[in-house]
């Protein structure tokens, strides 16, 4: 997309600074305005942006910037540090249970990529740990959701537990868990129907499923293209279910992906993986630094900091 990189913007906002000598509050305000703009254009939630800017301002008024010969680059460095820190650690692993099976439950809004990502996780676990997962088809609402998971199971040669669409999701999960015990599957991945976080009865269904399956992982699957509501949505799912982590999908697109920051900052739960394509192998480890650069449109940032 045709965004000017943030580092360029900050440099421009502070250009001519060196001639004046001292950095003033006004200069800092100008630089933070550019940061605010970049974050909003990247779809970071506006409340999250406000908090973030407050943090940057506080640090920017400290001596590391004020006494620097290159205040612009110092600010960029601070932004990068704070943002990467907010993004959390890389390579957070899924929780693993002491006794088999380890249970993973996929949740999220409609169409975010839960079913596909369930398959991707199974694929990854098999490759990394020679796992023997069982997929449970607990979406009884979306037309052909069960077929979709069965096709994916077939492709991966992974068993899919299903009862069609006439039994409750709760019953299907209860029976699926039994089957996993009998067959000694080491992982169970539960695919649930997409739902709005404000849909009380469907959120209750998820609470019931959680109660029945006692999942070690409740993964919120979120679309990287989501706008401002990413924060509200993530908060809703987290409040209701106490999610354990997030997977961000469709990052193979050209979105800046500010939703990552909103979700992370609102839930304080780790981003586990990112989806980077439709194939079942397109699931990658999350890199917080890359994500920050992407959000800010700062591909050129690292080289600038190195010079600073």
């Amino acid at each position: 997309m045709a965004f000017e990189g943030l580092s360029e913007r900050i440099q421009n906002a502070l250009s001519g600074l060196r001639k004046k000598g001292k950095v003033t509050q006004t200069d800092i305000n100008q630089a933070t305005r550019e940061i605010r703009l970049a974050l909003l254009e990247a779809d970071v939630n506006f409340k999250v942006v406000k908090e973030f800017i407050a943090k940057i301002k506080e640090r920017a008024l400290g001596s590391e910037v004020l006494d620097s010969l290159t205040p612009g680059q110092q600010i960029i460095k601070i932004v990068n540090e704070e943002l990467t820190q907010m993004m959390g650690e890389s390579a957070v692993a899924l929780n693993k249970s002491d006794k088999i099976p380890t249970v993973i439950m996929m949740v999220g809004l409609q169409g975010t990529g839960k079913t596909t990502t369930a398959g991707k996780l199974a694929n990854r676990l098999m490759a990394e740990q020679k796992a023997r997962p069982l997929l449970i088809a607990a979406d009884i609402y979306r037309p052909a959701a069960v077929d979709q998971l069965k096709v994916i199971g077939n492709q991966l040669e992974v068993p899919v537990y299903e009862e069609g669409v006439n039994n409750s999701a709760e019953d299907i999960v209860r029976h699926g868990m039994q089957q996993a015990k009998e067959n000694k599957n080491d992982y169970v991945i539960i695919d649930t129907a997409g739902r709005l976080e404000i849909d009380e009865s469907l959120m209750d269904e998820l609470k019931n499923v959680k109660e029945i399956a006692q999942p070690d992982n409740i993964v919120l699957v979120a679309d990287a293209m989501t706008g401002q509501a990413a924060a509200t949505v993530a908060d809703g799912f987290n409040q209701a279910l106490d999610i354990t982590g997030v997977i961000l999908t469709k990052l193979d697109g050209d979105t800046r992906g500010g939703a990552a920051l909103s979700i992370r900052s609102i839930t304080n739960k780790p981003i586990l993986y990112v989806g980077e394509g439709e194939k079942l192998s397109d699931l990658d480890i999350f890199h917080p630094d890359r994500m920050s650069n992407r959000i800010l449109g700062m591909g050129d940032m690292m080289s600038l900091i190195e010079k600073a």
Partner: protein
Amino acid sequence: SFGDKLNAFFANFRRIDEDFFDDLEDLLIESDVGYETSMNLVEALRDEAKLKNAKSKQALKEVIVEKLVGLYENPGEEDEGLTYNEANKPNIYLFVGVNGSGKTTTVGKLAAQLRSQGKSVMLVAADTFRAGAVQQLVQWGERVGVNVVTGPEKADPASVVFEGVKRAYDQEVDYLLIDTAGRLQNKVNLMNELDKIKRTIQKTFKDQPEETLLVLDGSTGQNAMSQAKEFNQVTQISGIVLTKLDGSSRGGIVIAIRNEMNIPVKLVGLGEQVGDLAPFDTEKFALGLFKGLI
């Protein structure tokens, strides 16, 4: 009504001061209108309020409603709903968009609506790629009572479309709705595939598709603009279907799309059920943007 709710909104503000405009700006940004469009809009409102000397709540309310609706609507533009050409059967509607935006569901819902108006409808399952996509549309077809043209597994989507067009012509149906696979707008190969589908249609009917509808997830942020641009480049978009407006999102980005590209929203998706599809209503939409403060 719109007016009542706006009254309630303005009752919350004792004075029309800078705070008011700051809140308004936040509100628009929160609705995904986008930073630039929000700034412009607030600026315009500020000016207009000054110009019209709108000091009272009542006066400012009128200014805002006018401005919001006026910003979206094209003066002099007649009905911007879906078009139908009796002489051009089958009226072909092509549905395009990114992954998971709601294309297949919208095709199902619209088929039901057209059927209930006594029209004959046929569907084409041109998503031969995604797991379970064909079954999904076939189930919609069964639910709604319309025929679905399908091809063999992993068939070239253009060949399924060709078959669909032929059958729809032979059977003289009023509408042919084509469901395509989701694709991200930066995937060149997949966008070329869409171009091929369009050319396949035009081999038989050079003035079709009657509508090419971009199905946009209402919760999408600023990336929606890039979607509109890229899809428009490959298959000229005649309108937008804005889905999932029953959620927490307001789809404000369509204002920017309208401003920049003049593409109208023709339909909105309001849920997963067959009846959850409605024509776009500008006033309702404008009201939706105020949801947080009313």
